């Protein structure tokens, strides 16, 4: 059972307190988007073996959404951070690089 620290309330929460929200930092395709761009937004998701940015909601806690940077294979957590960002913050990127020097960086 995964444990993630909610950056909003500071609780180290068990997975059963959380709901997953899939890939983070998706760009919403609006009414003017092309069919392809919109289909991408709706259906295409990264599914890496390794570093991944995810959305989680502390639903049985403070009720807030947050982001987590995690390795999908080893389950290591590089950090959790605010949901109110469009890209992983520098300290999270640095934490990933420290443990995964070969990582190519956020897509």
């Amino acid at each position, binding site marked *: 059972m995964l444990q993630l620290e909610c950056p909003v309330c500071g609780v180290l929460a068990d*997975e059963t307190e959380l709901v997953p929200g899939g890939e983070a930092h998706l760009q919403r395709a609006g009414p003017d*988007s092309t069919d392809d761009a*919109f289909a991408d937004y709706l259906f295409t998701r990264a599914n890496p073996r390794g570093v991944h940015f995810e*959305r989680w909601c502390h639903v049985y806690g403070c009720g807030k*959404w947050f982001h987590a940077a995690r390795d999908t294979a080893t389950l*290591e957590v590089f950090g959790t951070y605010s949901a109110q960002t469009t890209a992983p913050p520098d300290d999270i990127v640095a934490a990933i690089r420290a443990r995964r020097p070969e990582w190519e960086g956020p897509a």
Partner: protein
Amino acid sequence: MSTRLATGGTRIDRSQRLGFTWDGQPLQGFAGDTLASALLANNQVLVGRSFKYHRPRGVVAAGPEEPNALVGLGTGGSFEPNARATTTALADGMLVASQNAWPGLAHDVGVVNGWLSRFLRAGFYYKTFLWPRAFWKRLYEPAIRRAAGLGRAPDRADADRYEYLYLHADVLVAGGGIAGLAAAREAAQAGLRVLLIEQEACWGGRAATDGVTVDGKPAADWVAGTVAELQAMETVTLRLRTTVTGVHDHGFVTALEAADAGPRQRLWRIRARHIVAATGAIERPLPFAQNDRPGVMLAGAVRDYAVHYAVSPGDRTVVVTNNDDAYRTAIALREAGLTVPAILDARLRVEGALPERARAMGIPIKPGHAVAGSVGRGRVEGVAVCVQAGEGAVLETIPCEAVAMSGGWSPTVHLWSQAGGKLRWDAAQLLFRPDPARPPIGADGAAIVTAAGAANGVLPAGDCLEDGVAAGRAAAKALGAKPQTGKAATAAAPEEAPIEAVWCMPQGAPPALRDKIWLDFQNDVTMSDVALAAREGYESVEHAKRYTTLGMATDQGKLSNIGGLAVLAEARGATIPEIGTTTFRPPFTPVTLGAIGGEARGALFKPTRKTAMDGWHDANGAVWEPVADWRRPFCYRKPGETVDQAVAREVRNTRRNLGILDASTLGKILVTGPDAGRFVDTLYTNRMSTLKPGRCRYGLMCNENGFLFDDGVVARIDDHSFLCHTTSGGSDHVHAWMEEWLQTEWWDWQVYTANLTEQFAQIAVVGPQARAVLEALGGIDLSADALPFMGWTEGTLAGIPARVFRISFSGELSFEIAVPAAHGQALWDRLMAAGAAHAIAPYGTEALHIMRAEKGFIMIGDETDGTVTPQDLGLDWAVSKKKDDFLGKRAQARADLTRPDRWRLVGLQTLDPRTRLPDGAHAVDGTVLPTGIRRTIGRVTSTYMSPTLDRSIALGLVERGPERIGEVIRFADGRGHIEARIVDPVFYDPQGERQNG
């Protein structure tokens, strides 16, 4: 004959006799016995029948690895199938039944499967019974189901209580042998909170039985001293009879306790910062012919039964081995006064300290010898001896009552492996052991498990203590504590000479013997089965496992794993490490569903949400219906009425006179803030921001796929505030949906949401007399001019602060009154009293549904299923064409959502008004698709007998439906068809004159 010895038994208390029954036969054991030791002490060597061939089987092991001695415990609601006799503590009055034998254990008709064994080989499920096809369903499957399988499922609800609890510790030590005790002590001395868990009923593991000394004294003394020391420390928690069943992601641990008092079992959910796996090792059987005969046991188990429980497996026990450890068994049996006619050692050179001692005791040792097969009728009566190097030519037959076999030991690496730790092959000891370079890791990337002692591949009994000390210190260091550095106690045990590989006995055994060499006792898998699987191309160990069933079921291959890998390796010309192991998954031993569920069953499984008027409904004939987490009255039944009659009465009375509905479950979400208008415009398909305070509008919510998922009336409270009504089942989801968008997409918008659903009781007053009864209560002007349709107002009604919404889900004149929940019952009572003069009667959800269907109003979950758009439902009028954006707008322009032949909402009238279309029935057009399936052109979404129209009505989605009004289509109904005419979905009062009155 297997009996109790006159003296001895370190774990039994001869002063306490316990009575139990075995297949109805009364037997006796002692306190401290396991069920298995008690059965053996009573000469019950035959304890079960095998899974596939129904071969007689006896106890093989003395621990959780036992594959055969699975029994049914208890009776009725306390019946438990597949309990392992070897780990079940004997209790007075215990009812024990054998499994998998009919009509009885000694005479089982299923044994005929054994004669058919040549047809029941690996993959037989997939091959033999394929043809003819029709036979599968009627003949093969029922026959196999009756003959195969383990215990029978309980036939009633579990009468026992279970619970689960949480434990937190710095270091969890799994296993209370000397390695685990040493590790726990080191971690505790470093100042850490330690949790030490042992699956057996006493501490010390195998050390005492195996003749280990610590600092020159018997290991038992050191164990007792260390346990006392740990018990005296406040930071240490010790638990016996508790099995660590799994190490899960991020080091979450589950442990199952066989509770002595209170609940039957406890499941501990443990979070420890570090885990020491000191889980010991499991002995391997030897692969010789007829090695599954009752009386053939693991050498270590024979020793355990003799030393712990004073059980003699028989006067004469032949020991067969490929290592030195088994000599301990021979010595223990001799010390108990029993005979060991021979030790058959597959190795040619036998010269370790233990063999020397056995030799000195006068036990005959036959180096280079092996078992060609066990002999006997039912149970062992002797072994046929051959040379290991040969093909099984029988040199002599030694009469005996038991065979103690040892193929070496496999570290219990389950906990290490479950969480992702990798193994390496130790070619000298012939075992997989934890690879410290590739441990299971936690969230921070650091190792979460340290293996210790035999579980770490440190098999020599004397070295386990030292390894445990090292593991405890390493765990302390990993957590930043300061471990002791001094020299710890020193354990000693006789040196052991190296093991030799024996993956087949004798090594040149011909097929006839290999057919009878059992690898997996529980699943009846022989050496030939695994070789066959390899020949047929099941080369991957994971495929071979599933094809042959080797290593499946309740024991999960604890005995058979390595033996099976060796056979697969030989067949493929590969090495064992090249084959690799199958995946270790939790749980280590089976966990009952009762323990997992704990107290969360029945009424405690999930709380029932109740409205403020719940008690009144219950006292007035409510027939309850679950609606999401709520319970709501389906109808109110009067004495002598059927449910259908009650529903029809409620509909008629509401349409003719006055109905009253508890609508409190309706979701009520307040959306407020400077950007609230912009936000509700984005959430709803139509424009809400233009709504004036005091007015209401019906709105639809779609997901980004363009599909409708919730609907409801929005009331504008003031410039900054909207009250969004949702469906009863959707309030939590809609609120979460709003929050998700506000927190993750438009976090700069100044909007606040609050789910007020439970803060208000809401009562719908419906019918021609609705206004009259409310005017009788007084306080608010509810005339048509003051409060027109789709308006709302607030004030004091009958002295209660209230909001009155003039909205209608029935098509009647209707007011929905929201009051603080605490006033709900008071208002209900006032309405019932004032309404008596107008024939007021409460109605339930079914009347609500019928009335809305008569009006063609859609119901989320009936007309929608997550693939239906507002346009499909003819709700284009509620989808804004002018707004730049709303959730779902872009998707509704996609090709599939705009194609003209989509299924769309229509009304359906059966040609026979007495016939009601079945719910969900599919319309067919008579053509057949290439797949052989009839093409469907629509389906029924809601269907009722309408009391108002006195005929059946239905709503449905039909291909190009609205273009086909008047057409008659056919719905499949079992074998036949029902014909129905496509009509407008509004069956009643299409002009809306009643609700506007």
